[in-house]
C-alpha cells in the first residue's frame, strides 16, 4: 500500500523538490536522450539520472528527442544554454559514427561539447540463428568467407548501433554478406529467431535473454573480458578474432561553454552514482560495462570521443554508408 501512496504522491506532484540551494542547481535539470523512451540509452540515462538527482538535490528530467540516429536530439542539446540545466546522454552513434554517417551534421562531437563522463557501455555480441551451420566463431568466419553474399546479415537500420558495428565487423573480417535492414532490433531479432536471416551484431542488453533462452546462438562478445551475464560466451580475442572489440558506450555531455564548476558538480554526481551499489547492480544486470576510472573523467571522455570518431569515420566511409 505504501507504494500506491508513493505513486499517488508522484501523480499529485506532492513530491516536494528542494528549493534552498543557493548555487547550481536551483531548478530541475533536463537530460536530453536522443532516442525513444525504452531503448538501452534511455534505460541507462534513467538509471544513472535517478541517482544523480539525489546527489544534486534537483530532479533530472529525461526528455526523449528522437530522430535521425540520435543527431536531432544532440543538435538541440548542443545549441541550448550552457548553464548546466540542459545536459544530454550521447552515445557511440551520436558522438562517434555520426560525422561519417551524416555529412551535414550540425555539431562536432569533439569540439561542441563539455564532456562530463562515461555512464556505461553495452558490449556488442555476435549472434546467429539457432540452426546456423557453425558452432564457434572460427567455423562461423569460415562459413562467411566461403558463402559470401549468400549469408543474410540483419541490422536495425542505417545509423543504428547494430548497423555501424555490423559494417565494422564485415570490414574487420573482410566479408560481404547481404545486408537486410529492419526498423529496430525487435523485428530483426524476431526474424533471426524465425530463421529468416542468418546473423547480426547487437548490444548485449537486446540479445542476452534470447541467448539464455536458447533461441539464438552467440559466437563471441566484443569486449576484452567475458560478461557475467553471458559467462559461456567467449570474447572475440579468445575465439581467435583480433581487432573487433566494440561496445556501445553512453556518456553524459553538456553544451560547450558550460562553467567548469558546473561540469565538476555534474561529474561528481555521475561518479557517485556509478559507485552506488544499487545503480551498479542495475547496470550490470543489463549486461552493461562500467567505465574505467579515466573514462569517468571529462578528459577521458574527450579522448574517447576523439578516438571513436577516428575509428568510425574510415570504416563507415569505406562501406559507403551515409544517411544523407
Amino acid at each position: 500500500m505504501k507504494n500506491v501512496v508513493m505513486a499517488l504522491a508522484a501523480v499529485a506532484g506532492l513530491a516536494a523538490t528542494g528549493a534552498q540551494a543557493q548555487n547550481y542547481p536551483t531548478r530541475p535539470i533536463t537530460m536530453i536522450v536522443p532516442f525513444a523512451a525504452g531503448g538501452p540509452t534511455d534505460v541507462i540515462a534513467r538509471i544513472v539520472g535517478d541517482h544523480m538527482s539525489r546527489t544534486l538535490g534537483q530532479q533530472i528530467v529525461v526528455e526523449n528527442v528522437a530522430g535521425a540516429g540520435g543527431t536531432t536530439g544532440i543538435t538541440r542539446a548542443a545549441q541550448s544554454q550552457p548553464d548546466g540545466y540542459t545536459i544530454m546522454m550521447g552515445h557511440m552513434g551520436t558522438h562517434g559514427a555520426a560525422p561519417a554517417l551524416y555529412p551535414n551534421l550540425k555539431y562536432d562531437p569533439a569540439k561542441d561539447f563539455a564532456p562530463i563522463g562515461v555512464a556505461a557501455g553495452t558490449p556488442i555480441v555476435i549472434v546467429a540463428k539457432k540452426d546456423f551451420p557453425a558452432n564457434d566463431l572460427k567455423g562461423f568466419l569460415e562459413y562467411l568467407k566461403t558463402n559470401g553474399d549468400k549469408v543474410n546479415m540483419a541490422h536495425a537500420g542505417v545509423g543504428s548501433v547494430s548497423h555501424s558495428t555490423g559494417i565494422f565487423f564485415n570490414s574487420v573480417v573482410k566479408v560481404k554478406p547481404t545486408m537486410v535492414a529492419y526498423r529496430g532490433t525487435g523485428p530483426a531479432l524476431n526474424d533471426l529467431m524465425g530463421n529468416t536471416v542468418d546473423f547480426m551484431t547487437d548490444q548485449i542488453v537486446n540479445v542476452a535473454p534470447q541467448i539464455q533462452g536458447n533461441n539464438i546462438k552467440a559466437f563471441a562478445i566484443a569486449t576484452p573480458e567475458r560478461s557475467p551475464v553471458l559467462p559461456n560466451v567467449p570474447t572475440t580475442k579468445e575465439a581467435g578474432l583480433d581487432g573487433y572489440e566494440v561496445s556501445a558506450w553512453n556518456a553524459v555531455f553538456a553544451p560547450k561553454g558550460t562553467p567548469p564548476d558546473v561540469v565538476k558538480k555534474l561529474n561528481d554526481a555521475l561518479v557517485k552514482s556509478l559507485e552506488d551499489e544499487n545503480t551498479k547492480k542495475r547496470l550490470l544486470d543489463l549486461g552493461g560495462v562500467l567505465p574505467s576510472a579515466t573514462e569517468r573523467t571529462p578528459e577521458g571522455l574527450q579522448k574517447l570521443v576523439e578516438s571513436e570518431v577516428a575509428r568510425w569515420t574510415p570504416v563507415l566511409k569505406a562501406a559507403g554508408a551515409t544517411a544523407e
Partner: protein
Amino acid sequence: MSVLHEGPEPPRHHGPVRAPQSLAGGILLIALAALALWLTRDLDQGTLNAMGPAMLPRWLAIGVGLSGIALLVLSFMKDGDPLERWSLRGPVFVIGAIVAFALTIRPFSFGSFATPGLGLLFAGPLAIILGGYATNEARLRDLVLLALSLTPFCMVLFGDLLNLPIPVFPQALTGLFPADWSQKAVLRATAGIMAAAAVILFLTTRNRRPAPVDVADHSGRI
C-alpha cells in the same frame, strides 16, 4: 463525404466540365504525382533484387497520377458534384493559431529567423484567442476567459502534476518572484494568478452578457 449531400441537388453546369469537383480532384492528384516524381528524380530505382529507394515512390506516384487522369477524364463525361464554397477565414485563423503556438512555445530558429521561447504561458492564450477568431461569432471576452482558465489548468497538469518537459514560462519570469522560490512554486503562483484573473474578469463582466458558465467549469476536467 456526408457534407456533399447536405446541400440541394447540384446545379447542372453548362460547358464541357460536368463534374467540377472531380476536375479539381484530378488536377490535385496529378500535381501531387508530378511533385513526387520530381522529388525522387535523383534517386536510384534499383532492381527487384535490390530495390532502390526510388522504386516504390515512383510507381506509387505513377499510380496516383493515373487515378488523377481518370478523374479528370471522367469529369468531362459524367455529371458530378460542384465545388463547394470556400471560406478562407477558418483555415487562416486556425493555421495562424497553430503556427503562433509552435513559434512561441520554445525558442525556434529557421535560418536567420528566430523567436524567443515564451512557454505555455503565452503560447496557450495565443492559440486560443487567435484560433477563436476563426469564426465570426468570436467574442473577445469569452476567449480571454477561456484562455485564462485553460492555460493555468494545462500548466498545472502538464508542468506540475505530470512533470512533462514542456516549457511553461520564459526563464526571465522566475526573476519576478523571490529568489528562493522553486520552479514549481513559481509555476503554481503564476497559474493561481491567471485563474484569479479569470474569476475577476468573469465576475466584473458577467452582467453585460449571459456568462458561458460551463466553459470555465468543464475546462477543469478535460
